[in-house]
Structures are given as C-alpha cells and as structure tokens.
C-alpha cells in the first residue's frame, strides 16, 4: 500500500472529524467550565440540620443576648437574641463577627511558656505546676501581698474567683481596668456612698443632655443605647450632644454643642449655676444635698458666671442659659457623663459636675432620669478559709489605688514591688495611656501570668500564658454593667467544643488554687468551674440556666442623699499635658474596639478609608487648623509623648484647634510564628501619644487628650 500526502490528509481529517463527532469536545468544554465552578481550593460548606443556641456575648460590658445559628453542629452565624432584656434582638457588628474570634489566627492554642523572646508550648499540668511553684515561693518569702491581679471588671464569678484566690493567698492587690462601670461606681461612691452604682434611664427620658457620651459610639451597653436613641423619634425626646467633634452621636442628635476639649465639667457647673441662679432646681431634691451645698452654690456663682463659663468652654453665653433652662424645665431630663465610651480617662470633677445637674433637677431614681442602684451583687461565695499568712497579707493596704498607681509604683521602686501578676481578660499594655511605661513595669515584675485567648500586647509580655476559652466555648455568668437601667445577669454558654487546648479561666484559677494546697485549696473545693458557678449562683441558678438570664433589679430605687463635698472643695479642671498649640483627643468609632480586644477582620473591613488607609492612620482636623496641610496628605503628629506619621482628613465637623485620632488601631497581634495580619499593624495606638494625668483628690487618670503639633511629613 502506498502512503502519500493525501493519505495523511485523510488520516488527519478523519481523526479530527471522528473526535469532533464524538462527545469528547462537548464534554471536556462543559467539564472544564464545571471545574472552574468547583475549584478544589474554594471551600464547600457542609450542609445539615439548622439549630439555634442562645447565649450571651461578653466581648464588651454591653452583655447582649445572642442566638448562635448552627448548621450540622457548626456555628455559622451570630445574631441578636429576641426579647433579651438588654438588646431585644439587636446586636452590634463585633458580636456578629464573634465567630471570627473563635478561629482567630492570633489565638493561643495551648499553654505557653516564655523562653528568651520566644514562647514554647507546654502542657496544662506543667503550666499550672510552674505557676503554683512560683506562687508558693512568694508565699514562703512572707510577702503574699506581692501577688497582684488585673482583671477587666469587678463583677462576675471569674473575677470573684481571682479575688478569692488573692485573698486566700494573702493579697489585697486586685485591680480592675477603668471602665464606664468603674467610673459610675467612683461617682456613686463620691456622691451617694460606697457600694452603689448609677444607671441612666435613656429609654424613657425626654431630654438627654450628653456631655460627650458616645451614645451611638459604643458608650454603655451599645445596642441598648442604639435602641434607646432610635426610639427618641417616636417618643419626641431630645438629645443634645456636647463635645468638640461632630461625632455620630452629635450628628444624630437634635443639637450639637461644640465645646473646647476638657471643659465639659466647667459647662456642667456653669449650667448648675444658671439653674441655681434662676431657682430652676428641685427644692425637694436639694434638701437631700449635704457636704456643703451652700459652699458649692457660692463657688458656682463666683467662678461659673455665664460669661466666664462661656469663655472657658467656648459655648455662647446665651446658649448656655437657654440650655440650662431647657434642661431644668424638661419633664424627664437626664445628664449623661462619661465622654467617649466612658471607659477612657475621666476626671471625677466632670463626672460629679454632670451628675450634680441630675441631682439639682431631682431626677434621681425617677423614671427617665438616673437610678442610684446597689452594686450588682448576686454571687454567694462560701466563706474563705484564711491562714495566718493570708490574714496578714490581705490586711495590708493595696500597692496603688488604681492600676495607674500600681504601674507607677512598680516602675518607681528598685526592688520588685510586685512579684507576680495575673492579667485576665484585659490588655493594659495596649489600652492604658503610655503603654511603654506599662510594658516597662511588666518587665520589672518577675512573673507575669496571662489568661488571654489571644497573643495580644499584654500576653506577649507574660512569662506564662494559660489561654482561656473564648466566650463561645465556655460557661460564665455575665452581669450587665455600663449604666443600664436594669441589672441583668446573663449566662454565656458553650456553643461549640473548644477549638484549641484552652480552658475556662475559672477552671485555671481553681487548678492553681488546688495546686497551692492548704487553706487556699480548701477555699476552692469545687471540682470544676461549672460546679462552682452553679454553687455560687444558687439563688438564681434555676432561672439563669433555664432562661439564660435573670433580671435582678428593674426600675428606680429609693431617694438617696447627695454629697457634693468633692465639688464644694473647688477642684481644679484637668489641663492637657504639654504646651503645643493644638489638642489631640481620641475619637470613638463604633466599628473599632478600644478596650483590650482587637476588632475582628470583618469589623476592620467596615472601617472607612478616611480612618484607616493601608497601614496609615487618618487623623481629623478642621481645614482652618490645617495651615497648608492637604486632605489625604501625610503629616507628622507630635505630642510630648512621641510622634507618629499620619494621614490628614480635613473635616468640617472638627472644632478648630483640635485634632482627633481614632482609638482602637495600632494593634500588634503578631509574632514570628503567628499573626493576625487582617487586624495587626494597622495605624497607630493613640495611647502611645498620650500620657496619664492624675487628678488630685480622686487619683484617676483624667487625661482627656494632650497638646500636640502637626507638621508636614
């Protein structure tokens, strides 16, 4: 057979035609497109039965009820829990993004021990043993008071267990980080007596006069405040917002009253002066005043005359007068204090001055006003057994009044003022002013134990990390704080098996106590934390475990005395540190968290590019202040504490002379081995640029801002 060109042509054409008529082409074309529709690297979530579990979010003091939607037993979505007394179905973005914390790349996956500048994984048994040995040593040396603990809050069983451990160990050095609740208690203590707290009935008030309280910026219990604010329209209630910046609250308010930073106390006192002068106060209420009401009145008339107040605050005299009258004549007025989220630095002068307004118009313990309530105490711990070391140590006075003083003392003394420190659920190395000095103090404390879930700024300073379950993995009582008109205790329940080798912090404390033996171990007789919780909440456990929450008190209490002695001593107003021309103040942004926790990747994603651009933080200033600096240009911001490269956002909503920088950025949740690059190394931590300013008399860090200058980068 002769094979020629045509044969080849035939062969080729035949092959092509054969393949073309066969299903190969059609099938491969179809299948290759189906392949792109199901790329193996694109995850396919597993389907299954849908179930819901209710729990309580404890990311912030707001304590909202949540409903966790699970599919095939995997939590897939967090939503607000309908009919929950705090949030009634609403929920904030951080709570919704809660599942991202569960799988956060910066989560600590097992107990860690610091070795040089690295952490290495150890077992729980070893970790507890190391901690117990160290503590036993301290006790042996006879200075048990040198064990300190910094927790996020006073309330709740886990804080209770820490306190109990310290007490039976022999240390009074239990500290909490500043929070709205702590300020409410400080204010209540100064004006109504110890053991009390203050709540605001925003849902019912018809005139809310907010002294910079970011009612929709995360102040108090955020979702509760959102709801109260949203209901204003229907109730025809007014909101007047006093602060230097057109915040979201100011924008949403009926009126924004711009004021020079740090002069809210003066305006409040000026308003008091007008009310007194015009006899607009409630004389029944003032009958309860003690501690020098007349002295105070005299000071007000002398120091806070209209024109003088106007000069100090930058608010026009007529406006002050009008405002005072409007406030005093409202049916259910309430003056709200705790500027920003109320968890940053505050001065007692401001807190007391604003609250005096409430007292003057007689809204204490009245609907739509403020409630003076007993502290939320629902836990019944059995009596501790104390040995002599414990008794002696616990009887000593605290090393410092507040965390700030503790840090100061540790840094000041050459011998270790504190031998061992527990840090639970808080991040002082990020959220206190001048974190550098906090880290320095941590460095001087020989043994730091962190109970953090994440490798945050403070955990990185620890010698041992005993990682906690996140709120989605553990059982815990969550008392609502933060100025809520009702006291609610919620129950956080595990909605998923622990993802990593972590523990409930309560269990960690019990294990440490047991390892310490003797009277300490005797005070912790529970096998596990869950048993302890049931035991110490026995009074409310049934309804707590069944309904997921208990409302402890609801509505106003009885009338109460008002002590104005702090103000009657004519305290000075705190001034911003430094002598630059401008004032730097923090901005609260609901989409960021400024307490210990870092915002989730989703939350960071929602942050505007006029707040964070790439890794650059954007500061706000009035165009009048800019002096040649351009919008979206770069500049160097300098304060007495340091400087930072910033991007400029020229914002007409900013008072001239004031610079605003957002709180909650500049986290560094990264080490060589693990990092959450979605939220880390973005922007600047404003606390690095502000130093503490201690208010005499109260001992509070009251630095509302700091003097600053800005120059072209």
């Amino acid at each position, binding site marked *: 057979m002769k094979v020629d060109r045509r044969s080849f042509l035939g062969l080729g054409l035949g092959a092509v035609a054969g393949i073309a008529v066969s299903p190969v082409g059609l099938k491969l074309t179809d299948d290759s497109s189906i392949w792109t529709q199901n790329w193996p690297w694109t995850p396919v979530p597993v389907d299954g039965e849908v179930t819901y579990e209710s729990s309580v979010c404890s990311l912030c003091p707001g304590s909202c009820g949540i409903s966790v939607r699970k599919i095939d037993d*995997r939590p897939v979505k967090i939503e607000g829990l309908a009919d929950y007394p705090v949030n009634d179905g609403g929920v904030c973005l951080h709570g919704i993004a809660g599942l991202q914390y569960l*799988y*956060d790349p910066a989560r600590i996956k097992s107990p860690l021990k610091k070795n040089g500048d690295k952490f290495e994984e150890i077992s729980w048994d070893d970790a507890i043993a190391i901690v117990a040995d160290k503590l036993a040593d301290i006790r042996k040396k006879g200075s048990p008071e040198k064990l300190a603990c910094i927790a996020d809050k006073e309330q709740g069983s886990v804080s209770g267990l820490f306190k109990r451990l310290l007490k039976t160990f022999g240390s009074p050095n239990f500290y909490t980080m500043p929070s709205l609740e702590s300020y409410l208690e400080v204010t209540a203590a100064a004006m109504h007596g110890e053991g009390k707290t203050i709540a605001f009935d925003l849902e019912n008030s018809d005139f809310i006069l907010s002294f910079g309280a970011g009612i929709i910026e995360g102040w108090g219990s955020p979702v509760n405040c959102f709801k109260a604010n949203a209901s204003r329209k229907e109730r025809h209630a007014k909101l007047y917002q006093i602060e230097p910046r057109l915040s979201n609250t100011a924008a949403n308010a009926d009126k924004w009253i711009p004021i020079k930073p740090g002069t809210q106390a003066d305006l409040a006192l000026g308003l008091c002066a007008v009310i007194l002068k015009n006899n607009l106060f409630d004389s029944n209420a003032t009958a309860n005043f003690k501690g020098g009401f007349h002295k105070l009145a005299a000071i007000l008339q002398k120091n806070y005359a209209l024109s003088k107040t106007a000069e100090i605050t930058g608010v026009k005299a007529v406006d002050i007068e009008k405002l005072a009258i409007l406030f005093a004549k409202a049916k259910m007025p309430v003056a709200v204090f705790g500027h920003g989220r109320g968890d940053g630095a505050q001065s007692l002068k401001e807190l007391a001055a604003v609250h005096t307004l409430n007292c003057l118009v007689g809204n204490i313990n009245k609907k739509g006003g403020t409630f003076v309530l007993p502290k939320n105490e629902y836990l019944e711990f059995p009596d501790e057994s104390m040995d002599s070391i414990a008794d002696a140590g616990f009887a000593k006075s605290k090393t410092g009044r507040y965390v700030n003083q503790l840090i100061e003392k540790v840094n000041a003394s050459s011998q270790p003022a504190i031998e061992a420190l527990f840090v639970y659920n808080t991040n002082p190395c990020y959220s206190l002013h001048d974190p550098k000095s906090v880290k320095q103090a941590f460095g001087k404390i020989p043994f730091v134990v962190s109970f953090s879930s994440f490798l945050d700024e403070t955990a990185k300073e620890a010698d041992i990390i005993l990682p906690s379950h996140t709120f989605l993995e553990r059982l815990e009582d969550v008392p609502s704080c933060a100025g809520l008109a009702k006291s609610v205790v919620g129950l956080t329940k595990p909605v998923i098996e622990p993802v990593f080798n972590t523990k409930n912090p309560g269990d960690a404390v019990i294990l440490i106590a047991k390892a310490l033996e003797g009277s300490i171990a005797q005070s912790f007789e529970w096998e596990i934390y869950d048993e302890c919780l049931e035991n110490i909440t026995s009074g409310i456990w049934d309804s707590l475990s069944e309904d997921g929450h208990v409302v402890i008190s609801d509505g106003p209490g009885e009338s109460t005395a008002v002590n104005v002695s702090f103000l009657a001593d004519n305290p000075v107003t705190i001034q911003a540190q430094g002598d630059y021309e401008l004032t730097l103040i923090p901005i609260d942004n609901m989409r960021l968290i400024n307490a210990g926790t870092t915002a989730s990747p989703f939350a960071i994603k929602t942050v505007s590019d006029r707040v964070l651009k790439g890794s650059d933080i954007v500061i706000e200033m009035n165009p009048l202040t800019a002096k040649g600096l351009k919008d979206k240009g770069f500049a160097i911001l300098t304060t007495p504490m340091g400087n930072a490269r910033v991007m400029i956002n020229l914002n007409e909503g900013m008072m001239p002379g004031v610079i605003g920088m957002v709180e909650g950025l500049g986290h560094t949740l990264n080490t060589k081995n693990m990092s*959450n690059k979605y939220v880390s190394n973005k922007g600047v931590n404003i606390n690095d640029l502000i130093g503490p300013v201690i208010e005499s008399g109260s001992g509070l860090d009251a630095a509302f801002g700091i003097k600053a200058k800005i120059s072209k980068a």
Partner: protein
Amino acid sequence: MKQENNKAHKFGMVIDLDKCTGCGSCMVSCMSENNVPFKEDESNKKDSITWMRVYKLTNGKSFPDTEIVYLPRPCQHCGGKGDHGHSPCISVCPATATDYGYDTGIVSQIYTRCFGCRYCMGACPYHARYFNWWDPKWPEGMEKYLSPNVSPRMRGVVEKCSFCYHRYQAARDTAYYEGRDDIEEHEYQTACTTACPAGAIVFGDLNNPFHKVHQIVKPDPHPDTRNKHVIGKSRNPKVFRLLERLGTNPKIYYLSEREWVRKQGDNYLDGEWDEIKNHHGSSSHG
C-alpha cells in the same frame, strides 16, 4: 405548579436615615450571612467586597453647621425603566448570569454562570456589584464558620446583595412543609434588617398593603407624571430613592426628615430641587 401562580411579590426595603447610626452591623451581618471573604488590606474601598456599604454624606457646610448622615446601600434590586425587570445590570449581562425574578422582584446573581466580563458593574450607578479580584481565602480553620446556604464564590466572578434569597427559600420550604401557600412578613427578613440595632431597616413586600414597608413607602403604582419610566414613586414626602430620575426604579427607599439628605438622593440642575421637592407620587390616581 400552583405556587408559581401566586400574586407576584415585590420585596423591598425602606431605610430610616435618621435612625441609622452608621454602626456597621448591617455590613458585618451581611458578610457573615453570605460568606463574604476578607483580605489583609481592605482599605481600598474600590476593591473591597461589601454587599451592603454604608456611605457617609455631609451637608457640605463648615463648622459648626456641618451635618452628617449615613446611608446604607445594598443592591437596589432595580426594576428598570417602567419596572419591567430590565434593570441596568440584567439587560447588559451577556450570559444571563443575572436575571429578574418576576415573582419576587429580586435581581439574582449566579456566580457559576458569570464569566467575569464586569459589564454589569459598569452599568450599575450604585456600585452595588463587586468583582472577586482574588480567590477567597480564610485563615486556617475559619472556613468552618461558612454557611452552606450561600455558595462561596471563586475568583473572577461578580457578586452582590441577593436580599438574602436563601432566607426566602428556607421560609418557603417551611411553608411547603406546613402546607401553606405563602409566607408571613416576619418569616423572610434579610440579615441586615434583623441585625440593625437601631431598627432603621424595614423589609417586606412592597406589593402587600399589610406589610410595614408598604405602609411607610406607599408606592405609587402609576408612572410618575414627570417621568414615564419611574414607577413606584413614594407618596410619603419624606421618602426618596437613589437616582430615581434615571428610571432604574430601585426597591430600596430611604426616609429622612432632613431636606438636604433627600436632595442628595439624586442630581438636580440649579433651581430644580425647589421645584421638584414637593412632587411626590400622586395619590389622586393611586
């Protein structure tokens, strides 16, 4: 099949801008509900996928008369000119990867059909459509929170708000199971609506007079006397739609007491606003 003969729904939304606090819950709820991915840097908002985006509007006045307002913008689910279902995006998609559900009024987007030509994005004046420039990636383990109700997207396709259609499907499944013909108002609510802590978003069937959204919007079923392409103009003087004059006929309505806010909903020639601002969907022939 009987359920397909039911009277058509027209799902829509009214957002109270005076209640909106700009908190971002709607955005995160949406991302979490719909398996929206995230990446290391999301500060370039021009390539950041947020089906629901909250814009910040200002009145442009200087201190201290400045005012700001937040405007949440999901997909507007346009009905197109004359509300015939030819929304700007649907009519341009060459591969029928997006279509108009005439039974719901919802504009779909099918990721597996889309081949990524992005014509729909060019067509949408609201920038409600987003392209997957990257493959979605979750940190190790985090893919466990993904919901099977919404298919994760692959790179190279367009995605957008679906009015949480899977929730509609789920509600209908329950109704079928219980032998009901239709679903109740509360059974189908979008993730942004239920998440809004201020209760600023109201969602429901614009065609159903018993639904709250209908009662607030009071949509005019007749063409606007000034522009025959516009159907469903609100008869509530405080309610407006975005770019209504283009004839896109969105199903997202906005509510504000403030005139400057309403004015920013559309573009006007000099002096035109004063003439138009009191023109609302007429009730005379309604």
